[in-house]
């Protein structure tokens, strides 16, 4: 599946929820199933500090693909993280760099990515793109 197709899948899943309450309950559920970083690996170096909540992000480059693990101390943030990981993890750097994440807006969670929220999510996406850029450059130079 392409990133676009996974995004579409998520949009359709969220379409079954009538109101925000059900939507957030689903996010909380998703938050419980994120591939988490073990406490020992929650280093200062992979911490994205927001005023509201903290996010940890770890990336591994294997066979031309990037695999992400992440965690947050806030569960709704974590639920959104799980969606981002579902979209991004196991992708080639180029695919990640081209993705524009329209689905976040379509499922009505745009406000959570606003800079004023300071929950670390926006910085996390920037960090994911930065990793992709770095790995893309690395691939290029090893050719």
């Amino acid at each position, binding site marked *: 599946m392409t990133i676009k197709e996974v995004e579409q899948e998520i949009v359709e899943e969220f379409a079954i929820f009538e109101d*925000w*309450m059900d939507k*957030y*309950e689903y996010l*909380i559920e998703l938050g419980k199933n994120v591939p988490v970083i073990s406490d020992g690996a929650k280093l200062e170096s992979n911490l994205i500090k927001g*005023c*509201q*909540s*903290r996010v940890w992000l770890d990336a591994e480059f294997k066979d031309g693909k990037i695999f992400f693990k992440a965690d947050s*101390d*806030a*569960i*709704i*943030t974590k639920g959104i993280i799980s969606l981002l990981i579902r979209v991004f993890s196991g992708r080639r750097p180029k695919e990640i760099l081209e993705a524009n994440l329209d689905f976040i807006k379509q499922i009505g969670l745009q406000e*959570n990515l606003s800079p004023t929220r*300071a*929950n670390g999510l926006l910085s996390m996406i920037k960090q994911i793109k930065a990793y992709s850029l770095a790995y893309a450059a690395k691939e290029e130079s090893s050719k």
Partner: protein
Amino acid sequence: MENRSSINNIRTLFPALNQRVNGKKLVYLDNGATSQKPLSVIELVNEMNSGVNGNIHRAVHELSAKTTSLYEGARDKVKNFINASQREEIIFTAGTTASINLVASSFSQKYLNPGDAVLVSEGEHHSNIVPWQMACDRTGATLRVLPLDDNGCWRLDLLDTLLDSSVKIVSVAHVSNILGVINPIEKVIERAHSLNIPVLIDGAQGIVHSRVDVQKLDCEFYAFSGHKMYGPTGTGVLFGKYHWLEKLPPYLGGGDMIESVSFEKTTYTQPPLKFEAGTPNFIGMAALGAAIDFILQIDTELASKNEKEIVEYVLKEFSAIEGLTLYGQHSQNKIPLFSFTVKGAHPTDLAMLMDKMGVALRSGQMCSEPVMDRFGTESMLRASFAVYNTLEEAKIFILSLKRAIKMLT
């Protein structure tokens, strides 16, 4: 019942309260951050922007005369409101932060040297920490910290060991923005004065919930914001004892603060204008005068009765919620402000869910990281009530909190 209808009368003066958020009736409980504005304030701002607008203190035309008299009239209102002994002791600023920065900058230029110290408390807002750290960095002075006890109260038993002749100024909050505790500033002022040390009081929260009498307090400086006391954003006050204002060098240079200017030498005018360089927010300050008129019209007996009911109700409900920790002592010496955490539910998650239910709260570090560290938490959730909040709203707050906790745990 009488109580409720009277508070509802106050509510009708605040158009912002009558709105729906996320489809729900707004319950605005973030008054510690900023308050909503009454019609009298809104209308004066509109009226001035629509016509009564001329730069103050510099022209002979009618509009300038009108705005100047509204601006200077507001100074008289502030003077009376806090019982300053003369109107020249009232400096208009952009807010509490600007007021504290003014003192920290001007005072340190003249009175802080290497080896000197500034005393603040562990419970301060960043605005009463960082300006002093900056002043210490510039001058080689050090920052001393009066610790908090587990109830969020000052460790007064340590005051005598912290206060000595190397302390050149004490700068502490009247009321903590996180803990809501009304601090025993009188005691600290008295102890500091016994060593001839001047005291600045950060009154951002304190000015809203009690009547302040700066002559009775006898503090050298008292700083507060307009926007938390039903006035416009970008307005603030610095009260300073006149002889101190005379001694301090000016903060910003520019128009209105000078006596005469030449390229060889400029002399400065007297306080308060010495500290009001440039065109001030004269519309905002005039409207702060209207906010003070509003506060003076509040039936204080009714307001304190309503406040007491709310505090009793919230404390009772809180004690029944499993895993809830309330920070700051639970006694009478507190404003109606509640900072808390719930085990297993992150403050941000709770705030987001409750926002969807129409309840506006503050979550996060709330501009006081040292307080978070003191109580061993990354963030808190805060509900802060104002004069227009009702017991009914407190009930909706508790209901939505319980619902959100249930969703998260």
